[in-house]
């Protein structure tokens, strides 16, 4: 790579006569980019094309000879199958509730951390820690150590106040999964929003304060509009990561009790049921859902990005 880029660098300062043709120079500039680009296309795009093709086949891995082309049968089956439709609904519900809850909590925490107080650095560290627990380990912690109906910490603490002793995972399975995810994702939202808060124009805020604006007015009319794009970014990135969540569902409920989301269903339908065609169709649906979210996400990222570049 070094050799190829040295050429155009030297060529630029050399007299026009010795310049290599423009096309060659363009390729030399592109060369450092190509390995990464080719690698990404081969490893991520090709398998997806294969998924797309397989999704049109009726193909159970246990009966490979019965494989045949069935057009949109798999999609019809995915969209009409009650279990699969339920997993679409679970995915939407899980993603939306976790993103909204962690955004609201993250905003509150970011506002608290934005002001000076004793031990702010320590509190920031305490708050980031949940995000830095390996997801499977976090799910195990919630499942066995916090939620366990007999000796979990939650019921242990309830015991002190004479409260009830619920079986959290069995009674409210989806809520149990959501709570553990909110715990892990709130720090993420907090970090993004804190960065947003700290990029505010302090002079503008000071000026508003001099003009007699109250804290609430400053928050409502200056801080919130400024934070809007950071909120959008947090929501969209959170959605992209949580739509794909597999670890928490797999660990806490193993997809049981009506908590199977689409990634879990895709995993199950080919890893356990060996339904390759159905799994692929469900996978394609996850992708379509992600593309819808991603289109918005890309727009937000690119508007923030343009601002950075133009700065």
């Amino acid at each position, binding site marked *: 790579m070094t050799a190829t880029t040295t050429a155009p660098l030297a060529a630029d300062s050399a007299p026009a006569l010795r310049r290599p043709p423009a096309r060659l120079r363009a390729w030399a500039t592109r060369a450092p980019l190509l390995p990464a680009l080719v*690698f990404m296309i081969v490893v991520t795009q090709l398998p*997806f094309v294969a998924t797309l093709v397989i999704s049109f086949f009726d193909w159970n891995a246990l009966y490979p000879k019965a494989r045949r082309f069935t057009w949109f049968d798999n999609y019809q089956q995915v969209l009409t199958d009650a279990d699969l439709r339920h997993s679409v609904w679970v995915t939407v519900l899980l993603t939306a509730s976790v993103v909204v809850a962690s955004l609201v909590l993250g905003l509150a925490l970011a506002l608290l951390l934005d002001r000076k107080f004793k031990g702010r650095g320590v509190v920031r560290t305490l708050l980031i820690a*949940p995000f*830095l627990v390996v997801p499977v380990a976090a799910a195990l912690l919630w499942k066995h150590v916090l939620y366990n109906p007999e000796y979990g910490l939650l019921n242990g603490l309830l015991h002190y106040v004479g409260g009830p002793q619920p079986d959290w995972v069995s009674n409210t399975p989806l809520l149990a999964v959501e709570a553990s995810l909110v*715990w892990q994702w709130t720090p993420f939202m907090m970090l993004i929003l804190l960065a947003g808060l700290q990029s505010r124009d302090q002079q503008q805020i000071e000026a508003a304060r001099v003009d007699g604006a109250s804290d609430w007015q400053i928050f409502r009319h200056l801080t919130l509009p400024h934070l809007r794009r950071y909120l959008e970014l947090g929501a969209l990135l959170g959605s992209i990561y949580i739509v794909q969540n597999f670890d928490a569902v797999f660990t806490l409920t193993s997809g049981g009790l009506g908590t199977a989301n689409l990634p879990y269903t*895709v995993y199950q339908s080919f890893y356990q049921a060996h339904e390759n065609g159905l799994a692929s169709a469900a996978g394609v649906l996850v992708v379509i859902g992600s593309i819808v979210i991603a289109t918005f996400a890309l727009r937000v990222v690119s508007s923030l990005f343009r601002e950075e570049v133009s700065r």
Partner: protein
Amino acid sequence: MSSTTATSARRTGRSGLGLGLVAWLAGIVFFLPIAWMVLTSFHSEADAATNPPSFAAPLTLDGYREFFGAAGGASPWPALINSTVASLASTLFVLVLALPAAYALSIRPVKKWTDVLFFFLSTKMLPAVAGLLPLYLFAKNAGLLDNIWLLVVLYTSMNLPIAVWMMQSFLAEVPVAVIEAARVDGAPLPVILARVVAPIALPGIAATSLICFIFSWNELLFARVLTGVVAETAPVFLTGFITSQGLFLAKVCAASLVVSLPVLAAGFAAQDKLVQGLSLGAVK
């Protein structure tokens, strides 16, 4: 002016103390599960499984001894080593591929470089399940199932977009004028890279590496589907604890902590750049 500063100072003084306490309380509530996990990992199994919880029970290392296979059962070492290999090797590959790419997107940009940048980002938004089945079938036919190097390749592709974005933003911070000046002075490219670009971009590159390491270490879905006995990673090893097995809370806590330690260490080391990495460089 001086009077308003005084009022605002008084205001922060009065409500500031209360809000500082609220912040501390929130921090403690969020950290409580982790603190409890640490404490439980040092308790005996009998003390770990009591209701009400035994906060002051005697401390012991039995949970850790059990986890590392003292009482028989599978040793976690092969899984921990596999995770280390997969995370370190994939991070190294990511650096090798992402650095030149980021160079061609920042210091000496190709035409339409923003489009290329957004192509990388869009691949990150393709969910892992989208290609899982073909990858599984390919691995099975090519005899690559249960092979750690397959995971290395997949983790490289998983982290490459993030790394390209982050490094692009770090390399873009290198002032063009300085590079120009060095070039006019006749410095060859390797010297420019080593003397001018590296010192400015190095902290960013280090943070990028740490974040890639974290994501590889955490990954479960690919590892679960594509590995078995030989190439099992630490998160897959942890899934062995999903179903309850009698009294095992101390062991679970010890296991979760040991597996999370590298991530906690890397995360706190990269703390300042963590947001930038997680937001794909959109937030600084």
